[in-house]
């Protein structure tokens, strides 16, 4: 059902290989929706893409202020896209505050389309402008296109009988229509979506369609825009694609793990930004037998999941920021009771409440060590929105096979961003055998071990396997309470060896070192994968030899990690924290790794990482 690009009837078409667009407006202006729709039309056209939603923590900060600006950035190209782009080629600014907040994110000489109706004296003041930036020289060097979006929209819908407020609200569709024309995006996919969304409210539907068409036609007919821009489809492997956000992919991966293991999924969570989207998504799919509970607090959510795990379900709980602190004690209980459970931590900027809508990879050491006692736990991190699907399945596989809690470290960027996803063949997805324990006539030993050091998963309701577990130290094999000195040491070692043994089930760390003689290794983990790839490609483009490797499992590390990080003369670890993986790598392997750190709540930009690599190579 691929749509064809819509070519201009009257204007010339200019070819580009990639474009970065940033939609910015007030929180109430519907910029996330606009970006999301543009993304979908772009994906269907076959461009590769990456997106970055960037919104404030407040639901509606005072209208017209810089605090209330919500933005959505997308990069799309005719080649592999790995980041949402460092700088926007085009900024759509719905009001002065959006311009003020995002002007520094526009490339020099870039295009800025402003809604000139909103550039009133009052709005300029609210945005903190002493004079009008469109006339005082602030925008010199940019290509400025002032468009009276609000008034054209109001005129376009006036015959439809919707109120002025509703009419003005649909100006985001005007902006979408205009930008859709500029880049030849297909209109049918957007119109279909509008019908699905507003089909029940004919007036609102008509108004949105009218605004969208008005924007599209404005581009086509006015003299303002001289030509349309075309970005060809990116070469892609054969198959069926869809655009997917990380939160969807993660939820679907958990469901897939449940389907492929026959173990019902149980998700308990307390509302928290940005992890709530997982609860929202999973609660839609109860026809897969997914139990979702909005618990009374973070601690309850974790304990409910653990109780469900004891009862033979795949117990999952999700959280962000402070929630991981609250769940720590329960994770310790899951470690000692050795039950299959997943804690999804959608990391956000901390400490404490921090910046709830902003990104950070600040919880790696909390995941590793954030519990009292010796409490080892496997940790895995997805590297892109679509990768969340397979990482969720892997986490479930390890949790079930090894009878252990697993921490899945996602982050705010991965959850909210989207990318095209080559859909997997569902019949070829890995299966997971839960191997529930069955009575065999002999005395049941709840803490006996298999070859993976996993203990039996004996679920209530099974005759003959009645047993008691809990947070007190267990005696090896019998599972009875034990304070015996040697036993505690033995159990501590077993728990550690079991987690270390998972390395046998995970692939070795792959190094991308095309010439085989790189001097510098860039080692990453999690959502920085795209940026690292982009930066390294650029550095290689200027002739430098640089290797990269990206960690998926952070605990245990792949067995060849030590060999790799000690092989290169220099190791650079870019992280959205102050150097947490660096600390682990240095402590574990005595490798002289350096950190490229960024903690601004924003992604690492490819150009700043490129600079850092070049500086490290050439001093």
């Amino acid at each position, binding site marked *: 059902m*691929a*749509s064809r690009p819509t070519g201009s009837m009257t204007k010339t078409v200019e070819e580009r290989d990639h474009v970065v667009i940033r939609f910015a407006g007030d929180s109430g202006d519907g910029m996330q929706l606009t970006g999301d729709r543009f993304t979908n039309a772009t994906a*269907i056209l*076959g461009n590769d893409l990456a997106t970055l939603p960037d919104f404030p923590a407040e639901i509606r900060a005072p209208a017209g202020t810089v605090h209330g600006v919500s933005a959505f950035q997308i990069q799309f190209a005719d080649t592999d896209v790995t980041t949402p782009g460092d700088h926007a080629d085009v900024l759509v600014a719905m009001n002065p505050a959006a311009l003020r907040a995002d002007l520094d994110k526009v490339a020099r000489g870039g295009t800025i389309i402003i809604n000139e109706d909103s550039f009133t004296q009052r709005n300029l003041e609210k945005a903190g402008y002493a004079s009008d930036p469109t006339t005082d020289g602030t925008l010199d060097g940019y290509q400025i296109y002032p468009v009276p979006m609000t008034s054209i929209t109001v005129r376009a819908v006036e015959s439809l009988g919707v109120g002025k407020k509703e009419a003005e609200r649909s100006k985001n569709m005007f902006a979408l229509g205009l930008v859709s024309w500029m880049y030849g995006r297909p209109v049918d996919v957007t119109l279909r979506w509008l019908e699905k969304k507003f089909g029940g409210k004919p007036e609102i539907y008509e108004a949105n369609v009218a605004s969208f068409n008005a924007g599209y036609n404005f581009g086509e007919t006015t003299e303002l825009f001289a030509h349309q821009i075309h970005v060809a489809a990116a070469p*892609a492997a054969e*198959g*069926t*694609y*869809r*655009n997917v956000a990380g939160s969807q992919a993660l939820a*679907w991966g958990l*469901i897939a793990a449940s*389907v492929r293991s026959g173990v*019902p999924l*149980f998700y308990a969570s307390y509302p928290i930004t940005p992890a709530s989207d997982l609860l929202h998504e999973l609660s839609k*799919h*109860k*026809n*897969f*037998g997914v*139990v979702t509970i909005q*618990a*009374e*607090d973070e*601690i*309850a*959510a974790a*304990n*409910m*999941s*653990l*109780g*469900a795990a*004891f*009862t*033979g379900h795949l117990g999952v709980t999700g959280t962000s920021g402070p929630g991981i602190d609250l769940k720590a*004690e*329960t994770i*310790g*209980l899951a470690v000692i*009771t050795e039950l299959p459970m997943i804690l999804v931590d959608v990391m956000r900027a901390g400490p404490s409440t921090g910046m709830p809508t902003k990104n950070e990879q600040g919880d790696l050491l909390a995941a590793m060590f954030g519990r009292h006692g010796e409490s080892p736990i496997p940790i895995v991190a997805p590297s892109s929105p679509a990768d969340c699907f397979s990482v969720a399945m892997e986490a479930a596989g390890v949790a079930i096979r090894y009878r252990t809690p697993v921490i899945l470290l996602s982050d705010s960027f991965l959850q909210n961003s989207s990318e095209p996803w080559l*859909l997997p063949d*569902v019949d070829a997805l890995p299966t997971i055998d839960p191997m529930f324990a069955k*009575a*065999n*006539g002999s005395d*049941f030993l709840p803490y006996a071990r298999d070859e993976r050091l996993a203990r039996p998963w004996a679920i*209530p*309701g*099974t*005759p*003959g*396997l*009645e*047993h*008691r*577990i*809990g*947070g007190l130290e267990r005696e090896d094999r019998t599972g009875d*309470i034990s304070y015996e000195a040697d036993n505690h040491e033995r159990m501590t070692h077993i728990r550690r060896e079991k987690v270390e043994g998972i390395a046998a089930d995970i692939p070795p760390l792959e190094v991308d070192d095309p010439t085989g003689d790189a001097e510098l290794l860039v080692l990453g983990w999690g959502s920085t994968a795209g940026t690292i790839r982009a930066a390294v490609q650029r550095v290689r483009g200027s002739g430098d030899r640089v290797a990269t490797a990206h960690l998926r499992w952070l605990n245990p590390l792949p067995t060849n990690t030590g060999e790799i990080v000690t092989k290169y003369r220099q190791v650079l670890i870019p992280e959205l924290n102050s150097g947490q993986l660096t600390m682990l790598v240095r402590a574990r392997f005595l490798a002289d790794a350096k950190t490229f750190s960024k903690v601004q709540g924003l992604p690492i930009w490819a150009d700043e990482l490129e600079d850092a690599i070049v500086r490290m190579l050439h001093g």
Partner: protein
Amino acid sequence: MAEENGDVSGVATLTKKDFTSDQEPRWCPGCGDYAILAAVQGFMPELGIEPHNTVFISGIGCSGRFTYYMDTYGFHGIHGRAPAIATGVATANPDLHVWVVTGDGDALSIGGNHLIHALRRNVNIKILMFNNQIYGLTKGQYSPTSEEGKVTKSTPFGSVDHPFNPVALALGAEATFVARTVDNDRKHLTDVLRQAAEHPGSAFVEIYQNCNVFNDGAFDLIRDKQQGLHNQIRLVDGEPIVFDEGTRCVRVGENGRLEIAAVAESDPSSIVTHDIHGRPSLAFALAHLSHGPTEPTCIGVFHEEDRSTYGEAVRSQLDRAVERLGPGDLKTLLHGGDTWTVG
């Protein structure tokens, strides 16, 4: 083990032994917990529920050890969280018989939030709260049910905290079964626990339990045979509330308030007839007849009502989702929405 794999024919012949694990109880000699354990192990066979379909879940405190002594499935959790773990168990498998054993500190202090939410959801769990009005495992600090002025290690000048009224708290949390009983009255204890077991939904049972080491005699007025005769107000559904060998009663006083009075001085029509299925306001008023076991106090079932259990509601929602959307299909899920094909 109670029986061989898959053999349920032994149900009728279950005995106390089938519910008794091989672990030796390790409470202080003379602790009220022994009597409760014996009562529970003794009456479980009467319920006709097999040990493998029974789960005991406990928190931290002296009561927490209870789980280890029952030869059923058991989960000794962390402090205060037993109702949350039990919610996971009872929701994941609504066919199990799930019991929570907790104490006044575990249930009402660190775990207060989970207790009230389990009760309002009407999760099908039976909560036995051993109230000894003290922290025993940590060797004698005051608890959220200790009386004001209580002198303990952590309150050498007396506690200034006002205590909870556990029965009133449970009623306030919309519990569908609320009762109180006493550790040393085997018959009353067993009778209340049996009713709790038969109640579909959350049952909250406060058990006055003597801690003979750190708070000995706290409930003497109620527990002691002689004193109890005068101070236990035994609630029986459908019967007038009369106690103290028939000499005193609970009657409706001024402005609808309940009060204790001599039967001889009371108009028979003013004596309250107990009604466990009525509005919880009667139960609430009865809960407030005394504030703690230092005056005549009600024991028995205060309130019971029918409400669908959480596990059933969740299960029926899953069933309805399948009816509405069809059984979950991965391919349909992944391919839903806008897709495009290359090649």
